[in-house]
C-alpha cells in the first residue's frame, strides 16, 4: 500500500471540506441535532403510557414524512436536471420558472401520496395505528405541512442556483435542521425556553401539537391551525421573494448557465 497515494485522497477530501458547507453539516450539525432530538424525546417519554406514546410517535413519524418528503423532493427533483446536465436544455424551452417550480411540486406531491399510502397501511396493519383517526384534521395538518415543505423546497432551489450544485446535498439535510424544534415526537413544553421560542415560529410545531391533542382528547385545535397557516403564508412569501431575488441576480451575473 502506498501511503502517499492514500494521503492524496485524504488531502482531496480536506480541500473539499474547506469549501463545502454540507460536509460541515454532515460532520457536526447533523449528529448534534440527532442527539438533541432523542434527548428531548427520552425526557418526554418518562411517565407516559405506552399506548399513547406509540400513537404519538407513529402519528408524528407519518406526519413528519409529509414535510420531509415534499421538502427534500422538490430540491432533489431539481438536482436531477443539474446532475444530467440538462437544466439549460429545459430552461431554453418556453417553460417559465413558475411552471417549472409548479411541476417539481406536483412530482413531489405524487411521490408523497404513494409513500403516505404505504406507511399508513403498514402502521394500520402491523401496529394498529390508524392515521385516519385524526379525521378531517388530517387534511388540515397535511395542508400546513405541505405549505411549509414547499417554502423549504423553493428556498433550497434558490440556494442551489446561488451557490451551485455542490450545495445540492443540503436539499435533503436542511429539513432535518428544524426537526428538534418542530416538536415532532414531543411537546414544545419539553424544550428549554430558548428553543421554545424557535418552535413558536416554526409552523409545523403547531401541526404536531395539534396532532397530539386530537389523539389525546379528540379535539381539533383551530387556533393551532390558523397560526400555522399564517406563518406558512409568511414563509412562502419570503421563500418566493428570495427565489425571485436570486433569479434576478443570477440572470445578471451569468451564474444560471454555470449551474448546469
Amino acid at each position: 500500500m502506498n501511503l502517499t497515494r492514500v494521503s492524496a485522497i485524504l488531502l482531496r477530501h480536506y480541500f473539499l471540506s474547506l469549501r463545502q458547507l454540507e460536509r460541515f453539516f454532515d460532520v457536526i450539525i447533523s449528529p448534534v441535532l440527532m442527539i438533541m432530538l432523542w434527548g428531548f424525546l427520552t425526557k418526554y417519554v418518562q411517565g407516559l403510557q405506552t399506548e399513547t406514546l406509540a400513537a404519538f410517535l407513529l402519528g408524528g413519524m407519518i406526519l413528519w414524512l409529509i414535510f420531509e418528503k415534499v421538502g427534500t423532493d422538490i430540491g432533489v427533483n431539481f438536482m436531477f436536471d443539474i446532475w444530467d446536465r440538462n437544466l439549460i436544455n429545459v430552461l431554453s424551452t418556453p417553460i417559465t420558472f413558475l411552471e417549472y417550480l409548479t411541476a417539481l411540486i406536483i412530482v413531489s406531491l405524487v411521490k408523497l401520496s404513494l409513500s403516505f399510502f404505504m406507511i399508513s397501511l403498514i402502521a394500520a396493519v402491523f401496529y394498529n395505528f390508524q392515521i385516519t383517526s385524526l379525521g378531517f384534521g388530517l387534511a388540515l395538518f397535511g395542508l400546513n405541512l405541505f405549505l411549509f415543505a414547499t417554502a423549504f423546497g423553493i428556498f433550497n432551489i434558490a440556494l442551489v442556483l446561488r451557490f451551485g450544485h455542490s450545495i445540492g446535498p443540503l436539499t435533503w439535510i436542511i429539513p432535518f435542521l428544524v426537526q428538534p424544534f418542530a416538536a415532532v415526537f414531543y411537546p414544545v413544553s419539553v424544550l428549554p425556553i430558548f428553543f421554545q421560542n424557535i418552535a413558536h415560529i416554526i409552523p409545523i410545531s403547531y401541526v404536531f401539537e395539534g396532532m397530539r391533542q386530537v389523539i389525546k382528547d379528540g379535539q381539533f385545535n383551530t387556533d393551532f391551525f390558523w397560526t400555522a397557516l399564517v406563518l406558512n403564508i409568511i414563509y412562502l412569501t419570503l421563500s418566493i421573494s428570495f427565489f425571485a431575488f436570486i433569479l434576478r441576480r443570477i440572470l445578471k451575473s451569468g451564474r444560471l448557465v454555470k449551474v448546469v
Partner: protein
Amino acid sequence: MTKNIVLEVKNLKKKFGPPAEEFVAIEDISFSLEEGDILGFLGPNGAGKSTTIYCVLGLIDPDFGEINIFGKSIKKNRSEILKQMNYASAEFTLPWNLTLRECLSVFGRFYEVKELKKRITELLELFEMSHLKDKPIRDLSFGQRARGNLCKALLNKPKLLLLDEPMASMDPDVVDKGIKLIKQIQQEEKMSILYTSHNMWEIEEVASNVVFINHGKIIASGTPLELTKQVLKSGASEPNLREVFIQLSRTKEDSSEPN
C-alpha cells in the same frame, strides 16, 4: 426582395464580476439574421459567443443593448418567442436515464408539438436513430447523443435555431451527414440558424454569412469568401475560414477594428 429580420442584436454589452475584477465578455455587438439564412458565429474560446447565445435565449441579462426576435423583445416576450425557437449544444445532454424516445416526448410537450409521436418518428428516421429510440441516453455514444440533441432541437420545427457547436465530438462522416440534414431541413422549413463551431469546414458548408468576434467585439463579417479575401488579402476563389480564423484570433485586441 428584402427578407424579414428574424434576430436582431443591437449594441449588446455584458460584463461579469465585481468592479475590481471585471471581465468584459461582450463589449459591443450588433448583428442581424435574416429569414432563411444561416449565420456562422465564430471566434476563439472566450470570445463571447456562448454569452451572446445565452443572452439571446434570455438566460443572461445583458447590461446594455436590445435583442429582438421575430420583431419582439426577448426580455418581455421570452416564453412566447421560445415556442418558435430551439437550441442545441453538445455541451448539454438530454436526461441521462431516459430513453431517446422518452426524452423527445418530454421536450415535445415543452413546445406543445402537435402529432408528437409522428414528429418523433420522422426525426428519428431522418437522423437514422430509429433503432436507438429505446436506449437510455447514458448508453449512447457522444455522436449519437449529439444527434439526439439535434432531434430535440428540430422537434417544434423552429423558425430560429441556435446551434452552439452541435457536432462537437462527432466523427467527420457523421458531421458530413449531419450538415447535409441540417441544410436540407433548413431549406425545406425556411429556418434561420445561428451556428457556432470551431470546425471551419462545417461553417463553410452551412453558413451564408459569417460574423467573427474576438474580445467581445465583432472584428469581421461577410460571406465566407468575402471574409477570406478581406482578411487574407488575397484573390481567393474558395473560402478558407481556417486561415481566417487563425489570423483573426491572433490579432491583438488594440489593433482590431470592427468591420
